[in-house]
């Protein structure tokens, strides 16, 4: 059973070291996913009798998926989420790239203190950030004109939610891009400096192409994050009627399972979302890899 180790060595240690991770992964990632697949194919079969009704689980085929797909509210929640992603993801990526390039620019001042300030929201949980922004938006307490501007209006609400999400993640992404910039070799940039290129030209034509893989990576992560949108709309919900209990897909999963007690439908919705995320990750990952392949010659 023991194959020769990398250095002709047989030991049980590596198996012991990897075992806890594998066991936990099986129990808390793969088993729940498998159980959700099982539940999504079942339904509650209620049988009525003289002594009252009793219910058993029965095979339901794909009917839970069918009712998820035929429910217009599912598509509405999906389109609301996509709208927020369309606002939030480009904002995050553009802001993070701009901030990182500015921090890396020659002769920019206050870089350390602004970097810390921009990074700070990462330490604020999404729910707390949403409560905080909720008070900034709320007409009665707003210091940013909430009594004049209706931040919870039919259209504004999408920007409102997207803003809270962007505020929470832009700093972390900025620092990821900044470290990517710092790791770049200096020679091309210095050559461009000697040739008299301006700071702006260097940023756009030398640095930006070199960190394209890192930008692709944070874009992909931001899109995946958007698919899991839950905390911000959930925490803003007590403050406004504009957000319903099925406003985004993950909120729908939650209310199916816990409010409507329809765990079978909830499992089907959760898996639909999971498959979409995995497809997007694999597809987006392939694009990212191609981008990196083009870079790293």
């Amino acid at each position, binding site marked *: 059973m*023991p*194959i020769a180790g*990398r250095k002709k*060595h047989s030991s049980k240690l*590596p*198996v012991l*070291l*990897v075992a*806890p*991770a*594998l066991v*936990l*992964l099986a129990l808390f*990632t793969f*088993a*729940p996913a498998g*159980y959700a697949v099982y*539940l999504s194919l079942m339904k509650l079969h209620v049988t009525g009798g003289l002594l009252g009704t009793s219910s058993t689980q029965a095979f339901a085929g794909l009917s839970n998926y069918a009712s998820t797909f035929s429910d217009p509210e599912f598509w509405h929640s999906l389109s609301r989420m996509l709208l927020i992603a369309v606002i939030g993801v480009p904002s995050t990526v553009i802001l993070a790239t701009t901030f990182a390039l*500015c*921090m890396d*620019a020659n*002769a*920019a*001042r*206050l*870089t350390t*203190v*602004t970097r*810390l*300030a*921009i990074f700070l929201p990462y*330490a604020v*949980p999404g*729910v*707390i950030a949403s*409560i*905080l*922004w909720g008070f*900034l938006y709320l007409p*009665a*307490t707003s*210091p940013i004109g909430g009594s004049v501007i209706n931040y919870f209006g039919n259209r504004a609400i999408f920007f409102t939610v997207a803003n809270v999400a962007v*505020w929470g993640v*832009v*700093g972390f992404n*900025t620092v*990821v891009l900044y*470290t990517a910039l*710092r*790791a770049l070799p*200096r020679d091309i940039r210095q050559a461009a400096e000697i040739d008299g290129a301006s700071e702006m030209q260097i940023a756009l034509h030398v640095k930006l192409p070199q960190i394209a893989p*890192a930008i692709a*990576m944070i874009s992909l992560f931001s899109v995946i994050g958007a698919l*899991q949108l839950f905390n911000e709309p959930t*925490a803003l919900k007590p403050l406004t009627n504009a957000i319903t209990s099925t406003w985004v897909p*993950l909120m729908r*999963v939650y209310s199916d399972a816990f409010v409507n007690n329809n765990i079978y439908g909830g499992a089907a919705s*959760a898996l639909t979302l*999971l498959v979409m*995320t995995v497809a997007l990750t694999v597809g987006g990952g392939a694009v990212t890899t191609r981008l990196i392949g083009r870079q790293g010659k």
Partner: protein
Amino acid sequence: MTTAVTSQRPPRTVTGEPRPRSRKRRRTNLVATAILIIGGLYCILPALWILIAATKSNAQLFSTPPYTPSLPGAFLSNMSGILTYNHEIFLRWWLNSVIYAVGGGVLSTAIAGAAGYALGKYAFTGSRAIFRIIVAAVLLPQVLLAVPQYLLLAKFGLTNSYESVILPQLVSPFAIYLCKIYAEAAVPDELMEAVRIDGGSEFRIFWSVGSRLMLPVLVTVLLLQFIAIWNNFLLPFVMLNNNSLYPLTLGLYGMLMPTGGQPNQYSLVIGGVFLTIVPLAILFLSLQRFWRIDLISGGVKG
């Protein structure tokens, strides 16, 4: 995803090369500096506003201008209000958050470090398959699994407990991935062989060589995991229904909920937000120099 660790090995001694910087230093890049100041203000002003709002009583919250503090103020009564709310439950929430984030963070870092070291430094039966499984698991977002995790744990009556929040967060496939990549590059085979020749056991190699050399990635993983668990909301939200087990996120959210439209608890919630953000911001800013965020970009790219 292949493995290229080149960008992370030499820890960015950019300043090491002597460059004639002082000559150019004089001219300030106004555009870049202005953008950074605006960005910094956008990120920090909302947090600072909480300082102002925390000085106001509920009545003042609605009657005084929102951007000036109320100076004799209700700050102290807000603080004692939130601290004594519902039999000091706020302190309990704080303690719970620390238990979840520190306990889960330390354990998950140990698990990821051990697994990453084994996969990075040994070839054994199934090691390639195991690594593939872990890479595949990176694709499954834990947030989407929270409801299925609840449904499964509920079947065994394990919900509504500390374990129900900690156990599902103990394995981070991404952390294992980072540790594996780092171990491959940072723990030299020659050094391991030298200890072996001296008669050191495999465990000793792991404990006194491997884990020491992996310290930078372990610290980074610990901080990432700490923040991820600290910020997590959905998992405790589905798992817990006993408010003495709540973490801060869930507790403060719950304080907004029961009163619904009645704003009578707003000043308490604002006080709670203040007492959540400030200590963590201080901790965070004082620890940020130990972060190696380059490990994340280096680990994923290439």
